């Protein structure tokens, strides 16, 4: 159904002929990297690559941003990534910030949780933002980057893998043309046609229960929290979700049974009474209605030679947990620096294998978590239902019962058991392990301005960075490695001592961060040699 015109951002784009299309058959244009699919993942990846100096051709088969809110929950990690891509403020300014969720059983609240209970982070646990806004802001950002050539209504219809390149055939309103690329990144979604073109399968589990999503526009007094019900009075025996989006739009997700007729259930006249029962009134308009079944599946390999898969094309999860778009964005940030290094000849092509290793581990984790949530919401057998009933009932009077209730476990960055990480050689009591994402913390610049560690990382150029805690003796970062110093002359001050605390740092400690903000190695007493060894390892050089 048509979405209401509630947003100003441009969502429709024209096809424009490109000179590549005028080249004679045997001399197709050569490009270093072609990204297929201008969704949140493809757009973000293209921006990241361009900011690293790569020229990117970005193809999309449509001429518009997809309708419907679709993905709405963007994680702290995604916002930190978008900060680096220059769009974080815009997303957060428009988005609805939240960190609290409540779980109800019947009419009774079982418990509430706070996903970011501590201060001193630049970004909140989550924002809710319609996917079309996120995409529109990313497209706007691409307008600032001449390195990106975004071609609408360019549909890849054939792909030929060669030793030294990939040949693409692209269909446009003015006919077909061919392109050669050193690397192709397929961000073309769960129904990826490139996945079929490389002949890869997409195996996993289909869940039979159906879920109805209705985004409704209304003025309501509900707080900006994620509310999840098991067996609510307005939707007996099933689960329900209520969550706020910008522009007075509310996401409502209702579990239906596996035998519901999608065509009947999707009709607004049938959805309306269900929503009215939930809200206690019918003063709302529909923005978007969708009925779906879950699938949890992934490709066996994310890297097929020079064709690399990212986002939903590589892995698909159920939506409870906000693990779809957020994990796709994590794919983009993981891949872009590696692909950039390989294209520049700074690292061997084998570095791309670590993208497969790290992100397929993450996909397994996301699939496991979202499968568990789905199974808890829609038990597969009488005994599973019985165990769930016991958990829900125990949750009313025990803490352990509350913790077992699974109404969706929300996306957090995965930690990688990775060949790029150097294991700890020293004793640490806390702080992010090698293979974990950096943590944010408040700092003060030498000029006395309040800032965050993630700002310092971004301003340093989002490259390999040595985060060191001063002990008076300066550590020299290897050539090409950026430097963030905490304490000492010219360093960032740590007035609340939260940076030292979150990194379990003592004077002299240092963390080597990768360009995606993951910890490659950490040292109590760093030496030049140890840092250099860890650096080459994380660059895939040894």
């Amino acid at each position, binding site marked *: 159904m048509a979405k209401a015109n509630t947003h100003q951002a441009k969502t429709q784009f024209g096809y424009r002929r490109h000179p590549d299309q005028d080249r004679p058959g045997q001399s197709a244009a050569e490009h270093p990297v072609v990204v297929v699919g201008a969704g949140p993942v493809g757009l973000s990846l293209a921006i990241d690559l361009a900011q690293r100096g790569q020229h990117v051709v970005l193809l999309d088969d449509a001429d518009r941003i997809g309708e419907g809110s679709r993905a709405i929950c963007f994680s702290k990690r995604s916002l930190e990534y978008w900060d680096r891509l220059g769009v974080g403020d815009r997303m957060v300014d428009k988005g609805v910030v939240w960190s609290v969720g409540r779980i109800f059983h019947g009419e009774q609240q079982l418990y509430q949780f706070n996903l970011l209970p501590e201060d001193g982070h630049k970004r909140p646990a989550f924002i809710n933002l319609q996917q079309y806004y996120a995409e529109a802001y990313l497209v706007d950002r691409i307008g600032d980057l001449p390195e990106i050539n975004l071609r609408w209504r360019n549909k890849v219809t054939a792909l030929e893998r060669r030793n030294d390149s990939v040949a693409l055939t692209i269909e446009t309103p003015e006919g077909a043309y061919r392109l050669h690329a050193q690397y192709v990144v397929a961000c073309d979604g769960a129904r990826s046609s490139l996945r079929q073109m490389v002949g890869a399968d997409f195996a996993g589990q289909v869940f039979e229960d159906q879920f109805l999503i209705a985004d409704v526009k209304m003025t309501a007094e509900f707080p900006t929290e994620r509310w999840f019900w098991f067996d609510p009075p307005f939707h007996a025996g099933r689960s329900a979700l209520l969550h706020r989006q910008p522009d007075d739009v509310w996401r409502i997700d209702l579990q239906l049974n596996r035998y519901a007729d999608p065509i009947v259930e999707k009709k607004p006249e049938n959805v309306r009474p269900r929503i009215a029962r939930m809200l206690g009134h019918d003063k709302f308009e529909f923005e978007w209605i969708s009925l779906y079944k879950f699938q949890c599946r992934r490709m066996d390999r994310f890297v097929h030679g020079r064709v690399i898969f990212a986002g939903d094309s590589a892995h698909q999860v159920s939506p409870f947990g906000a693990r779809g778009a957020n994990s796709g964005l994590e794919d983009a940030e993981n891949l872009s620096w590696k692909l950039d290094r390989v294209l520049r000849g700074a690292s061997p092509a084998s570095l791309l294998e670590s993208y497969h290793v790290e992100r397929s581990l993450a996909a397994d984790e996301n699939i496991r978590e979202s499968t568990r949530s789905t199974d808890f919401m829609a038990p597969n057998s009488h005994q599973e239902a*019985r*165990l769930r*009933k*016991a958990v829900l009932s*125990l949750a009313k009077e*025990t803490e*352990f019962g509350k913790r*077992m209730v699974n109404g969706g476990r929300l996306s957090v960055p995965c930690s990688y058991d990775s060949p790029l990480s150097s294991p700890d050689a020293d004793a640490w009591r806390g702080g992010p392990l090698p293979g974990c994402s950096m943590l944010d913390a408040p700092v003060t610049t030498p000029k006395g301005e309040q800032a965050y560690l993630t700002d310092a990382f971004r301003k340093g150029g989002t490259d390999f960075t040595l985060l060191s805690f001063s002990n008076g003796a300066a550590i020299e970062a290897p050539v090409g490695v950026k430097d963030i110093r905490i304490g000492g002359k010219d360093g960032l001050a740590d007035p609340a001592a939260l940076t030292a605390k979150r990194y379990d740092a003592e004077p002299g400690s240092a963390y080597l961060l990768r360009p995606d903000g993951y910890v490659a190695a950490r040292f109590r007493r760093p030496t030049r040699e140890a840092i250099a060894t860890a650096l080459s390892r994380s660059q895939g050089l040894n």
Partner: protein
Amino acid sequence: MPLSTSSNFARPDDAFRAIVEAHRGFTDEQSADFDAALVLILANHIGDIDVLREAILLARRRMIDGQQQQQQQQQ
């Protein structure tokens, strides 16, 4: 710490009776509900996933023994 299978109760008959008597008056369905809650409570008390997995394996061996006995009887 591995799963303890030595006898831990000073009076094992009391423990067995306590569980048996807790089920008195229940239908099979109610008994199954009750057991589900009891298993979760006890599992949390143990609080060790390795011990829990070992206990699950030990319990599962009853099912395999039971199936084999059934098959032998059918033969």
